[in-house]
């Protein structure tokens, strides 16, 4: 195939809680919206990759969309499921075999913390019996270590959450769209130290669909070219610190953060796109907790470890800052339907590149819409997916 894979249609079912609508319903809603946006009909779609963690098999939606015999592959890959579906979809077009396809993700999780069982993670039963099968413990311990190494304050964690809710006010697809003051965030009950309840995202519901096309097809459709310059998915390196870890390797120099799947996926995405972190105009970084956004700023190359405190103080990650981060409020304000979450980031980036962000629109230095956009997800047991879009 010559040229780039392009995103020609986007659709979303609002995140949060939608009683009476199944996860698949929300996925179908998003697909119909994306088809209309692209100006194509379902029978033209040659293939689909669908991701869902807890809401059933995505391919069942052909019942609703039309029994065209379309190739439809289901993807499960932890929090990187949506990113993995998108990665697979772009490979199908890059192969030259297809011109037009769909990546769709949706989910619907029960209320409360994710409830994992040790056997699903190859862990002994006692690990759950003693109360360690709790994802929030890992996220809290990871930032606690990071704070002790690099002098990040709890106030800065609060500022990340404050920004998320403030941005989400302008994002119709977000769940929590009321601003919350920094004071209220910091004084809220602790869930897992140093995080208060506003600093963790919640499991949620939602659906996102993206229509992908070869560059040739995109030109035929007459759509503005949003180019997918890189989509990478990677797994963890040795000695990393991951969720549900009864033990971690000791290392010779432990004064630096450990290697992560995110660092690998990120470096590879920059290599493929032929640009660096300084060339990115807007970024959506996995923020399942406030500290994740800060650590992921460094893991994705945007700043050095420890610079985050100053970045936040200077407002560099605000909508009007040098690198706006999580412009729709991210996971903190949208919640996390696992199968859809990574695709929501890409949806938001397409909105930003098209200049359709309304009250949350990012402006490039010359006042026009941004030219480049970055997305990143991370999940258990050490998986990460990154995309770079360009227009």
């Amino acid at each position, binding site marked *: 195939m010559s040229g780039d894979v392009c995103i020609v249609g986007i659709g979303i079912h609002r995140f949060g809680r939608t009683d009476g609508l199944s996860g698949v319903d929300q996925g179908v809603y998003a697909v119909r919206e994306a088809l209309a946006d692209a100006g194509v009909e379902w029978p033209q779609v040659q293939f689909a990759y669908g991701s869902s963690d807890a809401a059933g098999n995505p391919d069942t939606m052909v019942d609703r969309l039309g029994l065209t015999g379309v190739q439809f592959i289901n993807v499960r890959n932890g929090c990187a499921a949506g990113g993995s579906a998108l990665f697979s979809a772009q490979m199908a077009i890059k192969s030259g075999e297809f011109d037009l396809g769909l990546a769709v993700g949706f989910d619907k999780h029960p209320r*409360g*913390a994710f*409830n994992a*069982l*040790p056997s699903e993670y190859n862990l*002994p*039963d*006692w*690990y*759950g*019996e*003693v*109360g*360690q*099968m*709790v994802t*929030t*413990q890992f996220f*809290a*311990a*990871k930032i*606690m*270590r990071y704070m*002790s190494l690099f002098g990040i304050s709890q106030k800065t964690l609060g500022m990340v959450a404050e920004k998320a809710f403030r941005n989400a006010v302008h994002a119709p697809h977000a769940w929590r769209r009321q601003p919350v003051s920094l004071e209220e965030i910091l004084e809220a*009950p*602790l*869930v*897992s*130290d*140093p995080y208060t309840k506003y600093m963790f995202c919640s499991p949620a519901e939602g659906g996102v669909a993206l229509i992908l096309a070869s560059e040739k097809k995109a030109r035929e459709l007459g759509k503005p070219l949003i180019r997918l310059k890189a989509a990478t998915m990677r797994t963890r390196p040795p000695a990393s610190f991951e969720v549900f*870890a*009864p*033990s*971690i*390797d*000791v290392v010779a120099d*432990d004064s630096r953060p450990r290697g992560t799947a995110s660092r690998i996926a990120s470096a590879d995405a920059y290599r493929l796109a032929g640009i660096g972190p300084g060339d990115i105009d807007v970024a959506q970084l996995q923020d399942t907790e406030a500290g994740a956004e800060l650590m992921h700023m460094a893991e994705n190359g945007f700043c050095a470890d420890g610079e985050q405190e100053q970045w936040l103080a200077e407002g560099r990650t605000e909508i009007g800052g040098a690198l706006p981060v999580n412009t729709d409020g991210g996971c903190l304000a949208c919640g996390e339907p696992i199968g859809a979450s990574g695709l929501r980031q890409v949806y938001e980036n397409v909105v930003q590149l098209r200049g359709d962000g309304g009250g949350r629109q990012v402006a490039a230095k010359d006042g026009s819409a941004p030219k480049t956009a970055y997305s990143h997800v991370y999940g258990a047991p050490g998986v990460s997916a990154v995309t770079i879009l360009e227009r």
Partner: protein
Amino acid sequence: MKAIAEGLFTDETPARLIGGKDRETGRIVFPCPTAPTYEPVPLASEGTLWSYTVQRFRPKSPPYAGPEAFAPWVVAYVELPGQVIVEARLNDVAFEDVKVGMPVRFAPSPLNPDLSDSPYIPAYVPVAGGAA
């Protein structure tokens, strides 16, 4: 003292945690996997706090098998120098006194302190007079 699972603690007094040493690479993990490629080895009794958090809500049951009544506890990652970093509880310390780097000692504790026959779980306590 009955451990919550076989092969977690040594039989000696005081007991030590049992890790698994990869017979080929020498890498130590915890707990000791059942695969024959791992050799059970006793882990150091003392180490330092690598990181931590406080569990502030009662985990869902199953899998949590602790008492219905809930009191927050410290979830600790303890570095045993030259061996491995293990996850366990940290007892006998006020939450505001917990600091990364503080010296700690292995001291298993009952999962349910109100039961005389409660199984014991991996836990540490601050080293008395430690430099924390």
